């Protein structure tokens, strides 16, 4: 995991937005012409991608929220994939 990745502050690509869908009990990522149904982990990470928090802070927050350690690699990898898909901008 690189230090550069940890200090990045990702945010959802405009005009993308998250919506918690009560009917499906899941987070949805709303994009122009497309809706992505997210699993719980993906939803939890993207919720924190607000352009303010660094990836390092996001990892800390989620590890404390779920009472787990060692989530860092998975979160960094997810953010990289989400950037490739155009969901996130750094």
């Amino acid at each position, binding site marked *: 995991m690189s230090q550069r990745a940890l200090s990045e502050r990702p945010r959802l690509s*405009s*005009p993308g*937005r998250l*919506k*918690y*869908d*009560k*009917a*499906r009990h899941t987070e*949805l990522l*709303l*994009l*122009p*012409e497309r*809706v992505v149904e997210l699993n719980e982990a993906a939803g939890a990470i993207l919720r924190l991608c607000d352009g303010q928090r660094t990836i390092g802070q996001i990892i800390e927050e989620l590890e404390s929220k779920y009472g787990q350690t060692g989530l860092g690699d998975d979160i960094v990898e997810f953010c990289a994939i989400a950037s490739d898909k155009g969901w996130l901008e750094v």
Partner: protein
Amino acid sequence: MTVDLPYALTAELTHRCPLHCPYCSNPIELQKRESELSTETWLSVLEQASELGVAQVHFTGGEPLLRSDLEQLIRRARELGLFVNLITSGVGLTEERVRRLSEAGVDSIQLSLQAASPELADTIAGFDAYEWKRQAARHIRQSGLALNMNVVLHRANLHQLEDIAQLCVDWGAQRLELANAQYYGWALRNVDRLLPFKEQLQEAEAAYYRASERFGNRIELIWIVPDYYEDFPKPCMGGWGKISLTVAPDGRVLPCTAASEIRSLSFENVQQRALAWIWRDSPSFNAYRGEAWMAEPCRSCERRELDYGGCRCQAFLLTGDARAADPVCVRSPHRGLILERVGSVLPSDEVTPKYAYRGR
């Protein structure tokens, strides 16, 4: 049968439109202003749709800008967390209106275009709309909103495909839908005047690939195939009553924007029934869900999970039986209807013939 939840609502706010495009997919019988839903009913539709699982709303028409409550509806949709897309001709989209729409929370605007040259564009639209569109595109970009564009392709404008892409790049669009005409409503009435001939279509496809190379890094180009020239039908609406629903100007709820032309079905109205009941339990939404309704050749076809037998509206309009295989399919016994149409188009035919203009 398990019923999926809908992701998208197409809200047809009105059938009124300043344009008279001969390829319009609105039904021949256009709803009048008096039969349009009230603001209160539309607000309730948005709330019910959101409860039901809808995440995206497309405000369209006709021309949705003709509804003075558009901003109010957009605001409510955004409060409900919906992604709001506006599909417009651009007529009436002044700088002030763009500002109000943007303040209300519209997420993206899709602007239609008829051709690259103003003369041809206005001939096709039956209205001097081109200059409105040029200015509307500028206002949209200046407001910081993403500009998406769409053009319906047919015999009269296919030759301008590369110029259309260039124009959309110049206007600052980030996405352009190049949608070959689909034949419903007014488009079906004009089919003999709109259908391109084969060589013309091949040239256009080559032009599309050239445009993708030239502009691909600046604009997303989307080619929507001309289904009359395909061997297999399109998976219409991603399945009947599966991912989206349409509410027509008069409140009827349709599985597809063209479905009101299926005369063998009757459609429930949001003024009488709850949206959730219509989606889950109404006879019209259950009519072609899943596979049990299928007849041969679809019933035993290995492609049935890919294309659901094609488009129910097209099957009904061309064969009189909405359960039939889409006649576009090479396995349909009615394929001859498509071949006959396609075969009767000649390169010598007039390029911009006398159209039956929508709403005239």
